[in-house]
């Protein structure tokens, strides 16, 4: 894939420059980092390098949604419950101030210790979680607050009750809801972007990934179990379906890569939050002032055009 991939990424880089997403003075270093990503791609990342992303994305000390919330937002008020059945702690939603502007945040939340992990169900949401997300995003729409979503889930919870409560339908409805919001949406994959459970809250006008995040249609273990009939071939599977940020950028699935402190976000959460804040602010600035119908038209066109076929 060498030269063709390089051309596509160069093309992508030039587009990013032209929309100014990462072109602000505050992030002049960002393109340099993208350039490094480009160099890495042209060198064709090895199985080991892709697997390192998988490991960093799942690192137990990696900052989670609420770690970023406390560092980026003032006046944070969390909103609970789907107004129907339950409050799903695997997804947090609320209002906060980013600089002087009220925004709505929706994000998956994992737990740090055994007790919290259980409470948060390892970041795997029930339909109630997606219904809470929809409720709060509609609130954003009513008051013209931009929406920021942070994606970090191994996937939607595969359980009997989750199915009985309509998991598939809730994931579909959440995406449909996002498509119809008349406010700017910025989505960032900050850890694991696991399949349907991830895309349910990732239908943004700008979709970004942190440098060591992964975004995939199935977990490496799940893919290995099905295609290799052996879950221990996960590393091989990950190398085959390429869930790393550089490849997602190359495939046109995301619009930019948010740099992390060297060594990964967990080595310096403050710095990781600062870099994330810069990227989110830039994306929001870029979307400011677009009329609602133009915003909606572009959002639909963005997702309608993704795919490669003959």
């Amino acid at each position: 894939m060498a030269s063709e991939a390089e051309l596509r990424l160069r093309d992508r880089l030039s587009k990013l420059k032209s929309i100014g997403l990462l072109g602000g003075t505050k992030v002049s270093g960002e393109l340099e980092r993208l350039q490094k990503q480009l160099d890495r791609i042209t060198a064709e990342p090895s199985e080991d390098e892709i697997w390192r992303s998988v490991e960093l994305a799942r690192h137990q000390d990696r900052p989670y949604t609420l770690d970023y919330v406390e560092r980026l937002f003032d006046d944070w008020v969390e909103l609970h419950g789907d107004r129907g059945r339950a409050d799903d702690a695997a997804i947090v939603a609320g209002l906060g101030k980013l600089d002087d502007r009220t925004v709505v945040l929706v994000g998956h939340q994992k737990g740090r210790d055994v007790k919290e992990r259980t409470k948060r169900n390892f970041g795997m949401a029930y339909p109630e979680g997606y219904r809470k997300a929809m409720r709060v995003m509609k609130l954003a729409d009513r008051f013209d607050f931009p929406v920021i979503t942070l994606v970090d889930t191994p996937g939607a919870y595969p359980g009997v009750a989750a199915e009985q409560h309509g998991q598939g339908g809730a994931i579909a409805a959440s995406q449909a809801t996002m498509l119809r919001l008349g406010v700017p949406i910025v989505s960032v994959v900050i850890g694991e972007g696991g399949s349907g459970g991830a895309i349910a809250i990732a239908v943004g006008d700008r979709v970004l990934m942190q440098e060591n995040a992964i975004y995939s249609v199935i977990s490496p273990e799940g893919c290995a179990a099905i295609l290799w009939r052996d879950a221990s071939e996960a590393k091989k599977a990950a190398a085959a379906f390429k869930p790393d940020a550089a490849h997602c950028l190359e495939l046109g699935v995301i619009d930019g890569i948010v740099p992390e402190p060297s060594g990964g976000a967990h080595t310096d959460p403050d710095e990781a939050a600062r870099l994330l804040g810069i990227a989110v602010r830039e994306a929001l600035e870029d979307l400011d002032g677009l009329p609602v119908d133009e915003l909606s038209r572009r959002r639909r066109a963005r997702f309608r055009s993704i795919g490669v076929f003959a």
Partner: protein
Amino acid sequence: MAEPRIDVRVETNDAPPADAKKHPNTCPKCQSHYRDDELEESLWVCSHCGHHFPMRARARIVSVADEGSFTEEAADLRSDDPLDFFDLRPYGERLAEAELGTGLGEAIVIGRATVEGNPCELAVMDFAFMGGSMGSAVGEKFARACDSAVEQGVPLVSVSASGGARMQEGILALMQLPKTIVAVADLHDAGCAYVSVLAHPTTGGVLASFASLGDVLLAEPGALMSFAGPRVVQQTTREKLPDDFGLSEANLRYGHVDAIVPRPELKSQLARLLRLFANGK
């Protein structure tokens, strides 16, 4: 967290044995065996116990569309292999084999038709083509079916049968979820109705996208329609699964579909709905 509303745990002693592969014409429920022509005659429904065998896309179209009314669209569209995906075999080889084996270019067939004289657009999936999995080509063809319905100003009828997103296309397969949902949003904005028929199985990414977004959802008897399959749920949670886990009957009870329609009644039921929606805006 959320308590299950109704927990139907039925102990059973007659769990299906992990037996050797049965002949495809043998009913897995009652073991009745049929000749090919008998199955075709009965629309692949067991005339003894009512079990619905898988139905191929072309046969489905013949069974619901008026004779000679179907005009296929986007028949030349094929999948590509953007990741150069290679598991135990290359993706390109799997695609070629699926095309040879099914006589279809992809896991979905789209086109215009009439049902008892009512014009509509059809989008019919075929599980025999790589498990009906949705990659870029399936997503694009479904979206084009929506476009075509809008252009004609007619309702869309889809019949889904899919294991979910196609792993061999990686993240691009996941992106077909929002893509098909955009197409349904455009369809709805144009005032066109959408009837989604869920056949066995409709799981994963197809259930979590367009198949769930019909104005009316009809399911076939005994069709599995769950986001996660029973094996994954069992392995992840170690929960005892209800006997009707994820089946259309359970989904009707929980309020996720409007009706269960036996295959021989599907055409007249679709025609009735198309007549009703014809009076809309």
